């Protein structure tokens, strides 16, 4: 999350402001460290490892003291649990991509709901949800925005946004992709007179 610093946030806000000045759309960008805790993964890793160690203690030709068996079995569980819980790389190894995609979608939809992005009069709120751990971006336009822009354009936007993870600087690339959307939104959802921002700046998005 270090890339998403104060300078980035200032630039992000200005970019969205620029898009909204040239279009009726209302954009909210949310960046999450991760969309799910995947609590079962370290737990499972800990259980399996301690079970294997316990099996080794029991059936090994070597002799072990009872305290050692007891202590090392428990310690091994916590050690492996802690390792998998705190090292994202190990954690990520055991999670399927489809599960990550699903987790991001669920979190994005929940954020959309909780943040009240659906409360614009013309249903033109659009959420761009980035989840760093899963390396996924989920774009969720409300009905008005979804139907105003051709599906092909949405597919291109999705594709371009998900390519930001190939960049060394995700934050900068995210802003670049947002800037590219300006003309598309301006073309299909042009600005209207007396348009005011209907979404608050401080959306409640913590799930």
């Amino acid at each position: 999350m270090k890339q998403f610093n104060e300078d980035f946030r200032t630039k992000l806000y200005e970019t969205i402001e620029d898009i909204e000045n040239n279009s009726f759309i209302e954009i909210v960008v949310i960046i999450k460290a991760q969309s799910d805790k995947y609590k079962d993964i370290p737990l499972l890793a800990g259980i399996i490892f301690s079970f294997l160690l316990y099996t080794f203690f029991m059936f090994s030709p070597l002799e072990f003291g009872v305290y050692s068996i007891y202590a090392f079995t428990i310690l091994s569980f916590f050690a492996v649990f802690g390792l998998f819980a705190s090292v994202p790389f190990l954690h990520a190894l055991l999670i399927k991509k489809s599960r990550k995609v699903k987790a991001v979608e669920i979190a994005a939809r929940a954020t959309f709901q909780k943040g009240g992005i659906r409360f614009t009069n013309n249903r033109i709120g659009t959420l761009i949800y980035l989840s760093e751990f899963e390396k996924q971006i989920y774009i969720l336009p409300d009905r008005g925005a979804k139907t105003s822009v051709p599906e092909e354009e949405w597919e291109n936007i999705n594709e371009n946004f998900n390519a930001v993870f190939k960049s060394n600087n995700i934050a900068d690339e995210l802003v670049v992709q947002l800037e590219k959307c300006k003309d598309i939104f301006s073309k299909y959802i042009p600005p209207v007179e007396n348009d005011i921002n209907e979404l608050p700046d401080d959306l409640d998005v913590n799930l």
Partner: protein
Amino acid sequence: MRKYPFLNKKFIENNKKTIKFLSYSVVISVIFLIAFLFIPDLMYSRPGGGHSYSSGSSGNSGGGDGIANLIIWILLSLSPEISIPLVILIIVVYYYKNKRKSGSKQTISSSPTYQNKSNEYQRAENQIDNLKNSDPNFSKTLFLDFVSSLYNKYYTYFGKSEFKNIKPFLFKNIWDNSTKNINQQSSINEIVIGNINIISVFEGGDYTSIAVDIKSNYTKSIAGKSTRHILTERWQFSRKKGIFSLEPDSMRDLKCPNCGAASNFTDAGKCEYCETFIEAGTMQWSVNNISILAQETFSTKGLAHYEQEIGTDYPTIIQPAIGNYIAKFTSNHNLVNWDTFWTDFTDNIAVNYFTEIYKAWSSKQWNNIRHLVSDRLYESYSFWLSAYQKENLTNKLDNIQIKRIDMSAIDVDKFYESFTVRIYASCMDYVVNKEGKVIGGSKKNPRLFSEYWTFIRRTGVENKKQEFSLHNCPNCGAPADKMGQAAVCEYCNTKISNGDFSWILASIVQDEEYTG
């Protein structure tokens, strides 16, 4: 027989006790090392925290001392076979829980940064200055009074026959939306407006528009059942270009913009007195757009709940052209030295008002300072005081000490002058129940906080002796003990809370919420 796989059998036999002792010592040392890494955080977690009057909720963190003590107790009381795994378990669970907590905070949104807010503030200030150039009668203070008055009437009359009395102040789209599908069983009352903030001024077509954010709360009754709501709404007011703002009397209350009579219109928007059709936006600001940004149900359950203070370390938001306004104020009042006036203002107004107002809040004698605050502020704080009283709670603010006062903004227009200052202070902020037991905050640890206070005064009012008297009517000099709810002095029968005679506190905004 116990065996240690990695050591020589004979050596183990000879040093059994030493090995056992060393093993446990290593494990215990590791535990203490880990605990040491966590405990400082726990020991110094702040029991107090912030308290927002606008939301009525805050929070409290803590409980770390309990875990540290529990770990020590377990290690000293139980046998190593039980205590060690138990302590490991506690530390892992605690670490995991904390990691989850900090993980959930790792959310970045496209909300404005301090830099963005500062840029927007500057833009809005420039837009207001431009508006003042084209409309010399425009007064921010009076405009906000008008917004407040219209907002109040809009909800009070909503769904009732009197709604027609505000027709000239609503554009057709708002009128149509507000009058169709009305639930006859519902009504809105007890409207309390907290803050009103100008977001932007812009021009489009033949109209000049102003967008404002309004924080309020009201009670909605449906079929006799009431619910209190807290809202943030964005209203857009528009008016034809080239129109001048009305005189103060017609801005403070809703009046016919043509004849000045009290607003009494037909369904078609014709004034009952002068029989003129008033079209929205032709003579007065009218509502063009309403958007509810946030709405939640009000609950008194969070009143004793404290959160960590945020925003105190934010830099003070200073009006971009403050130098020009200081010069204008100095010139208008023929001041020889601005610094002398500023010292006088902070010492006699800001410090004294701050002390008196918080004393009245803490002692629940809110009426004591009725003559020092605006109607909106008085009503807003009365609402929160009654919410505390309803729950048999008292918010105490002991040992209030002002640490510093910074100038933030000055506004000078044809009718009003206003000063916004940032006041840094500390106090013991806590909530007690009817038995006097502290149930939130801290009676021992002072809480440092800062707030933006805006004082207003009618332009042209000079420093009279009475204006610095906190306990007398600034008009007649009689004791300020008979002001009533409406701030009308019973001795001289004059309304005091408009700032026509002395400085009035118009708003209090928490540092994290202030945007200029």
